[in-house]
């Protein structure tokens, strides 16, 4: 095999790129190679990192591929990385979850689900680019509708929206930790 191999080239491209790189983009950058071989090379590269027990791995996130450090390195890396680590309040997480699962959604709908005013939380999520305005709903008053962004997928390490954890079913109400265990609940329809 001559050097550099396709794997090496892709490794280099992924190393320099600033965000997740899609398969489309890689194929575009590598006109001499077939899409299928690019895809195969990505997979080989990913397996390679894994088998080596490397400090970085290749993950599929926000529709593209990105080199990220493995979570086990967290205690070592957080010492070096400047700035505060990402922190989310419970209200921010709740709101994000509602937007993520129910998008496109209006602020009124979010507030009905949460039972509290959500203006400030929504604003800060907009500023953090985790949530975006998707347009206006075609109902009286034309309220703004919100959805999650690509940055949301990047930050939460998700491949796409389908990668969201599935919503817990009502039956497992009693599984929530921290609270005292409840007796089995009768299962009624919603």
């Amino acid at each position: 095999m001559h050097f550099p191999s396709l794997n090496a080239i892709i490794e280099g491209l992924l190393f320099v790129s600033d965000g997740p790189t899609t398969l489309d983009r890689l194929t575009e950058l590598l006109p001499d190679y077939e899409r299928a071989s690019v895809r195969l090379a990505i997979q080989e590269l990913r397996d390679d990192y894994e088998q080596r027990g490397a400090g970085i791995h290749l993950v599929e996130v926000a529709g593209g591929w990105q080199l990220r450090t493995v979570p086990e390195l967290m205690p070592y890396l957080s010492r070096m990385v400047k700035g505060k680590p990402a922190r989310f309040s419970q209200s921010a997480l709740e709101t994000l979850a509602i937007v993520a699962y129910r998008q496109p959604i209006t602020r009124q709908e979010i507030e009905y689900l949460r039972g509290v005013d959500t203006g400030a939380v929504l604003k800060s999520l907009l500023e953090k680019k985790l949530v975006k305005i998707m347009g206006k709903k075609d109902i009286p008053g034309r309220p703004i509708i919100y959805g999650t962004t690509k940055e949301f997928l990047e930050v939460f390490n998700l491949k796409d929206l389908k990668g969201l954890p599935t919503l817990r079913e009502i039956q497992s109400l009693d599984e929530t930790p921290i609270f005292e265990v409840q007796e089995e609940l009768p299962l009624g329809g919603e």
Partner: protein
Amino acid sequence: MSHTAETEPISLFEGATHGYSVKLDAFEGPLDLLLHLIRKNEVDIYDIPVALITRQYLDYLKLMKELNLDLAGDFLVMASTLLQIKSRMLLPMPEPEEGEGEEQEDPRAELVRRLLDYQRYRDAGLELGACELLGREVFVRPCSDGCCLEGLAAMDDGPLELDLFELSEAFNQLLARVPLARAHEVAAQETLSIVDAINEILTRLEGQHSLEFGILFLDDMSRERMIVTFLALLELCRIKLVKIMQNSRYGAIHIFPSVLATDEVGVTDALSFT
């Protein structure tokens, strides 16, 4: 949540007497508080003893007031909802009329639905929070602005495309700098046309690599002039004669001539509203 609550019979005034081991501000809202009360009392969520829960709920509100916590209006709304449900449950149910096959809904049904929904999303939120977050558990090679391989020269991937939300925010900031005219003149002022503004922008962009958003709006511009210029910019964007980008988040906004910009005759033709 004290573990004693599991073994000892629950006193109604538990909260007021020896205090909860729960921080009050830990409740995200009335639904969160209600769920906590339901769990603490170990009652069935589908058969909530409204009187008991309402009393404890109101005790909480009282306690919050004593602690001088800002009582959000949402908590009061829920209190009145609870009281309404309670009073509706005291009233005898009207006999279901013939032909109206459906049974009367339990007054608590909607609340139960909301509680379950809320609980689901709250748990989903916690699960999201437990993800391996970028910048917390996992890291990527940092990109220092300016030294990116694909810098301003190659616009494909380098600068971030801007969304309307940010652009209008930037415009509002600019507009705020210009004082509102105190007197309004009805006399014929210079007429402002979007086409003129478009041509002006294009002329200023000519031969330039890019133009900064703030520079586009000259200091001596009137509000009307600025608005027209902004509308012109949006129009140029729509007909794809310029690209508006930022080279970093919250960075300066730049306007780039698009390759398509050729002759000005084409511009006026492309304008649908003139």
